[in-house]
């Protein structure tokens, strides 16, 4: 499964929810599928997409927040799994697209390529629901189930380390930041 296929399969679930994604391939693939003002692309600050998602989920309990994380990013902030599991916001879904590499910076293998099991780390951290998917169909089902469960869930899915056709996004960082902030403000006012 490619990242683009995985994201296309769940795009209808992402469209209206609050999304925080990591940089690189995941951000540009999501952007290519169709940008929405409720999508935030965290360029840089690797590892903190899940922390931002946790902050938003705790601040807006009426919204469902989905974090699109990666193996490289999550390995830079493994403590986030224990912090999310500690507060267990039921409105947070943490998706890890594990391509076993730092694709956007030269494709060097990460530790998941040599056996580190991020689903296992999530389970051992106390995450109430941890799911794994290998196929697009399994992944789509896992995401639907997780969103319906209203229970903090981490889904780890293996994806191919294939770079997107383009990393270009016609959206400046600050444009994205203020658009996202305004979007959340309007949703708070008109739930």
């Amino acid at each position: 499964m490619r990242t683009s296929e995985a994201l296309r399969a769940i795009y209808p679930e992402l469209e209206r929810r609050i999304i925080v994604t990591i940089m690189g391939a995941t951000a540009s693939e999501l952007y290519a599928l169709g940008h929405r003002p409720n999508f935030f692309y965290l360029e840089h600050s690797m590892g903190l997409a899940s922390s931002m998602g946790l902050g938003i989920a705790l601040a807006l309990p009426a919204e469902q927040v989905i974090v699109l994380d990666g193996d490289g990013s999550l390995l830079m902030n493994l403590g986030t799994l224990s912090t999310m599991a500690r507060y267990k916001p039921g409105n947070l879904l943490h998706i890890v697209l594990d391509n076993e590499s730092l694709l956007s910076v030269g494709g060097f293998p990460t530790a998941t390529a040599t056996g580190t099991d991020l689903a296992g780390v999530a389970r051992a951290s106390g995450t109430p629901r941890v799911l794994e998917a290998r196929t697009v169909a399994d992944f789509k089902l896992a995401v639907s189930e997780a969103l319906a469960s209203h229970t903090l869930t981490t889904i780890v899915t293996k994806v191919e380390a294939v770079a997107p056709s383009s990393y270009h996004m016609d959206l400046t960082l600050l444009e994205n930041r203020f658009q996202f902030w305004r979007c959340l403000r309007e949703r708070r006012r008109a739930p």
Partner: protein
Amino acid sequence: MSVSITNSKLIYDGLKACDVKLIAALPETWLVHLIRMADEDRAMTLVRVAREEEAIGIAAGAHLAGVNAALLMQNHGFLAAINPIVSLAFLYKIPLLMLISYRGHMGEKDPWQTQGGLVTEPVLRALGIPTSTLTIPHDIPRRLKEAQTLAHASLTPVAVLLPRELMWEEA
């Protein structure tokens, strides 16, 4: 010798007067009462992080979601969080209200705190972070409010240093 409950309460009340609703914190001796007060306050969301970098992400998320947040950390925690302060808070123009216990400065007895104490203010200056040091108890509410006001107006991180003379009582 003990951490000042009176001044911790003044700081906590000052944060409440700033309408702070979420505190991300990592424990430190001088912060024990502040963290306990946040924990006992049902109207406060306290997030205990494993490392201070996470707290920058959590506070950024809270800000984008319209909730006033504050950070409680030791100066070594601030030093640990420099990359996200630069490449999340400054890069994305996210206001942060960072309360930093100022260990390793005048009067410090723990040798391991001293190196961080030496570099705290130079690093804050190098990053261009506006810094206020709380020394006078009756000034605490005003200075906290001013720090938050500047953070929100400039959309940048601001630091409030909590020094020994405020936090530590020599019995």
